[in-house]
């Protein structure tokens, strides 16, 4: 069944968000280095490897040659690339592809967990990856049940809150001082000193928290989603804007652009909610049951 145009747009937004996230991380894993090291470079892991019959040299390499750790580190990139393709090819009746995307979500959970561990177990580090971890799930839910289904929307709202609560916590200096690169980017882009940058980030942190709350109030939610989409995009592009320079090889694009791409869910999820609620006051677009696909057997639509 063909989706109404607005719903096609919503699905496209989710596809692009998922694609960007997986493609960005695939880029990191192929071109740079993934954050999985913290999970593997552990004495207890070596001990376990030996117990199950993988020798030291097999596991970590001989020094001259790579071991399993180094080889699989880059091979994981293929899984991300496959998931990126799946975000574009998956249809509402392709269960294997959906399963692949759910697996991709698992990979992103693992990745976020690794980043959380390497960030000295700072909770906001894991929380702010909520959008990235959940975007494949949201896409699958949207295909399986519909872009306006309660499950899809609730999951998107959870992802939204995770992204901006995590961001906001860091900007407000919880649990440790505001990350130095946040201050640096703000200082460079806005040409302000560290004191002013700190003030701006505190305001931004408060706004992050407020939009998380505003999401749950009907009169405020479109404004919250609009702010979050813009702010999510700006924070993603802040990295190349602050770091790229004409004097660098490829203008520094290979150092920074993937940072925007993999953060696609940070602005695509709010954008999805914004477009979802765009016609919130028009009863036929929100409150009327809209069967959007053959897979949508549940007549329940979002009344959030």
């Amino acid at each position, binding site marked *: 069944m063909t989706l109404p145009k607005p719903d096609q747009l919503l699905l496209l937004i989710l596809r692009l968000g998922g694609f960007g996230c997986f493609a960005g991380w695939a880029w990191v894993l192929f071109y740079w280095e993934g954050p999985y090291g913290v999970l593997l470079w552990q004495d*207890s892991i070596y001990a376990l490897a030996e117990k199950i019959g993988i020798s030291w040299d097999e596991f970590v390499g001989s020094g001259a040659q790579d071991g399993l750790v180094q080889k699989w580190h880059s091979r994981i990139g293929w899984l991300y690339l496959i998931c990126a393709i799946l975000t574009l090819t998956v249809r509402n009746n392709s269960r294997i592809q959906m399963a692949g995307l759910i697996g991709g979500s698992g990979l992103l959970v693992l990745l976020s967990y690794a980043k959380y561990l390497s960030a000295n177990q700072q909770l906001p580090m894991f929380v702010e990856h909520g959008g990235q971890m959940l975007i494949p799930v949201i896409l699958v839910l949207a295909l399986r049940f519909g872009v306006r289904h309660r499950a899809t929307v609730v999951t998107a709202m959870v992802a939204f809150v995770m992204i901006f609560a995590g961001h906001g916590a860091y900007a407000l200096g919880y649990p440790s001082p505001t990350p130095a690169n946040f201050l640096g980017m703000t200082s460079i882009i806005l040409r302000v000193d560290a004191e002013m940058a700190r003030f701006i980030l505190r305001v931004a942190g408060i706004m992050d928290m407020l939009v998380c709350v505003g999401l749950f109030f009907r009169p405020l939610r479109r404004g919250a989603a609009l702010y979050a989409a813009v702010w999510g995009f700006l924070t993603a592009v802040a990295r190349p804007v602050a770091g790229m320079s004409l004097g660098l090889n490829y203008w520094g694009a290979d150092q920074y652009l993937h940072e925007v791409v993999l953060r696609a869910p940070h602005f695509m999820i709010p954008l999805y909610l914004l477009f979802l609620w765009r016609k919130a006051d028009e009863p036929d677009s929100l409150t009327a049951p809209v069967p959007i696909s053959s897979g949508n057997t549940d007549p329940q639509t979002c009344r959030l």
Partner: protein
Amino acid sequence: MKLIRLVTLCCSALLIAGGAVAQEKGKKGKGQKKGPAALAIPNVEKKDIICFALYTVNDEVLKLTAQLYPVPEGDTKTVRLEIEKDGKWVEVAKTEVIEKGWTAPFRVENWDDTQTQKYRVLHGEEASYEGTIRRNPIDKDEIVVAGFTGNSINAKHGGDLSRQDLIDNVNKVDADVLFFSGDQVYDHHRHYAAWLKFGRDFGEIIKDRPTLCLPDDHDAGQPNLWGESGKISTLSGAADGGYSQPGEYVQEVERAQTSHMPDPVDPHTIGQGIGVWFTNLNWGNIDFAILEDRKFKTGPAGRVPKQGPRPDHILNPDYDPASVDVEGAILLGDRQLKFIDEWAQDWTDADMKVALSATIFCGGAHIHGAANGRLHADMDSNGWPQTGRNNALRGLRKGFAFHYAGDQHLATIFQQGIDEYGDAIYSFCVPSIANLYLRWWEPLEAGPNREPGAPEYTGDHLDGFANKVTNFAAANPEKNPAGNILNTRAAGFGIVRFNTKTRDIEMECWPRNVDVTDPEAKQYPGWPMTISQFDNYNPRSWGKLGELTFDVEDPVVQLIDADTDEILYTVRASGKSFTPGAPKGKTFIVKAGKDAPETTVSEAAKVGSEPQTVTLK
């Protein structure tokens, strides 16, 4: 089957790694403190508000910085410095405490460095902190410099264990100077709290002898540092160059660690208002150049072709080393090169010269991390950029400088080479106080020209940037460290004995928790090693000019290339005779003088020329 095993391993990795990290984080009690708890700033009584004090004396100027705990609101901010004269305390200076970092820097001119003097720092009515300003030990034959690096406080590898062994050993050898080469602080956000802990740990030995602290990357609050003259870094890992922390944070760090050092020779600030502290200290007739090998250095990200999974790491052994030696990449920068050039020629009150910096001028490790992480080259080392490295070495060898450094977490002795193996200075990289991150010197091929019976990793090698290096020793940690704390991770410290009479330089490399005065105590394999001051510029291809015999003791001799007017070197000879080394087939102007090379001795000296008697009186 292999795949199943691998999958099992991966699943377990998640659980175990999380558990292991969590276990570390939760480790408390039984004498072990996790980092954050150890960094709590204690509420001290008013009488204990002065935590510790560091000082140097140079050119009759005493600089002393008292480090205070936070001064309560309403209490005086004035801090006084007194010295004991004829049994009475006399105030010699007072200063206001700087609230950002709670430091109280004193500067006292016309200091009489011929006398040892007791001092005390006072705050308010109750707080008093006493120590000793040593006299300049110009009559001592041997100047002992204890060297430290990498002061991790992480319990995981023994960083939480007591430093009492280090305190005891410094007192036993009665070190004349303490040299902390960098990473005195590993916490990237709380330098002040960590610096106070450093003071509580080492204040007992610091208060009584000149101490040099070189803030390195972790001190500045980032994992690696390519300072790029004060740029702001935004890239994770900071390989884009610049400082990750705001300038005011870096200024506070440098005020705490370096404001007691001699005045900078070229004090112009860099970006973000960050100061500089490169300078020299003349103590016991040893002239120390204190270098900033991070502050001006170019960040590699986006400037060199990508060669590995990080912008600063090169994994591909087949890459072209010349491709990363890009035009415009800076190591020490023009200001420091100019300083080195002038310093190398100035032998006033100096018998020997020593360069101090954070790290060594080569890629001094092959394997990085917890296991066999072979890295072809690491741009965090001073092996990159090669042109900058060679320029630095060319300057330093002109003064026969010995190089003392740290940072690598791996103790090594190298002789650097520029155009040929062994044509530049020796470097001693000291081991970490507690080793956060393991490294190994493990070339794949045995080195030629090894000492008889020496391990295969010694001898002549090219580092990852194709720099010529000759290794003499490496304190490699165990591959899978048993117990995984301190000595199995090759932790320890260095002692260098500079004999100003014989001009010998003896390098010692000690593990932790040994008594260095115990005849049974063993150093790391390869140590001790003794070289001559004159080995620091003695290329294998050189010959000797005719012997010069002087009518004064220890004259200063200078060789100048007669064709180019370039100074080849300047050095203070030992005794009344000196046989200059020089390249074959060239003609040299030889100058000499009692304290400066003011008299032309020969205008056409060549290798193999006749001995000559020189009158300088």
